[in-house]
């Protein structure tokens, strides 16, 4: 009947409410837009002029008014549909997610493997993919600490920094190769993780977060001030580039050395190095994932998850909470260290500026947005938080605006994270199973 038209006289009150709501939203928009958009300062050399842009304010206010109406109507319809059968819809979604996962994950890995050979992939794309993969690795590393063991770590960037500086210093001072430095950097980071862990792991929740936050800052401050070793704020430049099993990626190799392109009879192209770096980080990322998935099915991984759920119960089951937390901290730190040394060799230059608190915050946001403990969630969240802002560089002005809006939307629709489905680690064969 009249289902598609707006409510008539009999249902006046919802319409009034709708208009009222939109009016309030428009009023708020007006108040915000007036100082933010209404005035613009023009620097004309000697004086500063003020320019008025009231038409912008008008556009914003009217836009918010109608936008709010549309949003409310859409949301109300979605809400009605959801309240009809919440359980069934939710279950169906989970099942669809599982089926997609079985198909999507191999497809994703395949895509990552052949990416450098795809026609559109040029230096910029490969470099961007490398950049994204670093964050995936950091996200997975922190996921062990925060997602699995439930220890809120706000200073994860410290281990990233330790990995980067270990590689830079070891490679520059002793001339160690990347492949030798990589495990050393990981071990050093893990060692520092344990060192930090010992005194602070009796703390819980907020208190642990504050102490780890402090640890992250301490490491950064040391890097800034320990001039003779770390180069202070100037950082370390000329960090050795990785070689392809001893073959450097240069156009003019040193005496007695064979360059990569000479060995394989190729024309020199700087792209080779980028592709190689891409595959190195891809391999590291896949190893990280494989190790994490394996650990989750081992007693230690189960103990991490149990510890996150209930520490007292864990104690009464004979689990040593200190050791369990320390292993989570150390292994998470180790992956951070690996990622750090890769970062150092990719950049060729490192300084304390790359290891500020905002990095920790981004990595933590990746883990939380992805859904604590979810490996696939980390990848999706990284694409969202790292790739999207990079791609949207043209809209640099609106980046933070989009970022904030996206965060709010996720909080409203998926408060548990994008992919929060947790797969059990133990299952018995169908033969021994019960009715379910």
């Amino acid at each position, binding site marked *: 009947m009249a289902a598609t038209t707006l409510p008539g006289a009999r249902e006046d009150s919802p319409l009034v409410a709708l208009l009222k709501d939109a009016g309030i939203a428009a009023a708020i928009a007006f108040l915000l837009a007036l100082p933010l958009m209404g005035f613009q300062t023009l620097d004309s050399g000697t004086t500063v002029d003020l320019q008025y842009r009231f038409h912008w304010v008008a556009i914003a206010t009217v836009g918010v008014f109608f936008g709010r109406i549309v949003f409310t109507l859409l949301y109300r319809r979605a809400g009605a549909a959801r309240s009809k059968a919440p359980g069934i819809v939710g279950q169906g979604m989970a099942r669809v997610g599982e089926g997609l996962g079985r198909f999507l994950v191999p497809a994703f890995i395949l895509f990552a493997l052949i990416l450098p050979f795809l026609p559109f992939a040029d230096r910029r794309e490969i470099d961007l993919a490398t950049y994204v993969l670093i964050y995936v690795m950091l996200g997975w590393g922190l996921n062990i600490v925060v997602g699995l063991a439930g220890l809120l770590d706000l200073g994860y960037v410290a281990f990233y920094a330790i990995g980067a500086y270990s590689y830079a210093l070891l490679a520059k001072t002793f001339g160690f190769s990347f492949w030798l430095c990589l495990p050393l950097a990981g071990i050093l980071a893990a060692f520092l993780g344990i060192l930090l862990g010992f005194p602070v792991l009796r703390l819980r929740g907020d208190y642990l977060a504050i102490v780890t936050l402090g640890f992250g800052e301490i490491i950064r401050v040391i890097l800034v001030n320990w001039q003779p070793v770390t180069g202070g704020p100037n950082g370390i430049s000329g960090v050795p580039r990785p070689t392809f099993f001893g073959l450097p990626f240069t156009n003019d190799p040193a005496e007695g050395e064979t360059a990569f392109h000479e060995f394989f009879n190729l024309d020199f192209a700087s792209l080779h190095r980028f592709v190689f770096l891409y595959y190195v980080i891809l391999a590291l990322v896949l190893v990280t994932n494989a190790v994490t998935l394996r650990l989750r099915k081992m007693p230690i991984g*189960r103990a991490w998850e149990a510890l996150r759920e209930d520490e007292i119960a*864990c*104690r*009464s*089951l*004979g*689990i040593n909470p200190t050791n369990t937390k320390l292993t989570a901290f150390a292994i998470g730190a180790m992956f951070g260290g690996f990622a750090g040394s890769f970062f150092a060799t990719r950049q060729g230059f490192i300084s304390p500026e790359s290891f500020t608190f905002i990095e920790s915050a981004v990595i933590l946001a990746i883990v939380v947005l992805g859904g604590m403990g979810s490996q696939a969630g980390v990848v999706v969240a990284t694409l969202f938080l790292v790739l999207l802002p990079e791609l949207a560089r043209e809209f640099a002005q609106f980046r933070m605006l989009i970022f904030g809006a996206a965060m709010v939307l996720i909080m409203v629709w998926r408060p548990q994270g994008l992919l929060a489905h947790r797969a059990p680690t133990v*299952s018995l064969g169908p033969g021994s199973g019960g009715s379910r």
Partner: protein
Amino acid sequence: MLRLSGVHTFYGRIEALRGVDLTVEEGEIVTLIGANGAGKSTLLMTICGNPRARRGEVRFEGHDITQMPTHDIVKLGIAQSPEGRRIFPRMSVIENLKMGAQNFGLAHFDEDLDRIFRLFPILKDRQSQRGGTLSGGQQQMLAIARALMSRPRLLLLDEPSLGLAPLVVKQIFETIREINQRQRVTVLLVEQNAYHALRLAHRGYVLVNGRISMSGSGAELLANPEVRAAYLEGGHV
């Protein structure tokens, strides 16, 4: 098997246990009854070393366990089902059971699982369900089952009847008797539900304000007018 002598436990400056003497012999079911805040749960926790006794001694099969860390005490063969069940809500039933076994080697896991499923058939039906989605009674069974997975010789149960329907309470107590008789596990049971606990137990202790005020066989305590007045009147018939 278990002997507490002159145990004092403090929370900060508050003395929760004021010199408790208690023994549990092998094969017994011993129950500890008392009002809210009498120190029943503290007593169980003190046996597990969390918090530790400040004075006095706790011995288990000849070992002095007063100063041992909790996880080492548990490895000696004491299992605890803590107050409020404390199962892992996001983990499946099987995973919960595996958590109970894993620090003792998973070599006997399948065998023990069969044993547990015979004791609690409902858990077999629910094995892949998440712990948090079980009913209260099922969660309590899971908590006891999880504690049994470590093949303990002494099982400490803290208020297994808490918040459960009378029929389910009966069922749980029946299972405790079975665990004690068939599996030869000694049981120390802390309960507010004095009637059921005393009927089940061989011996009982009454805890008042951190001190043992009475002890005796279950039947004796059940017939004692003071116990009746304090813990039974107006309760169960």
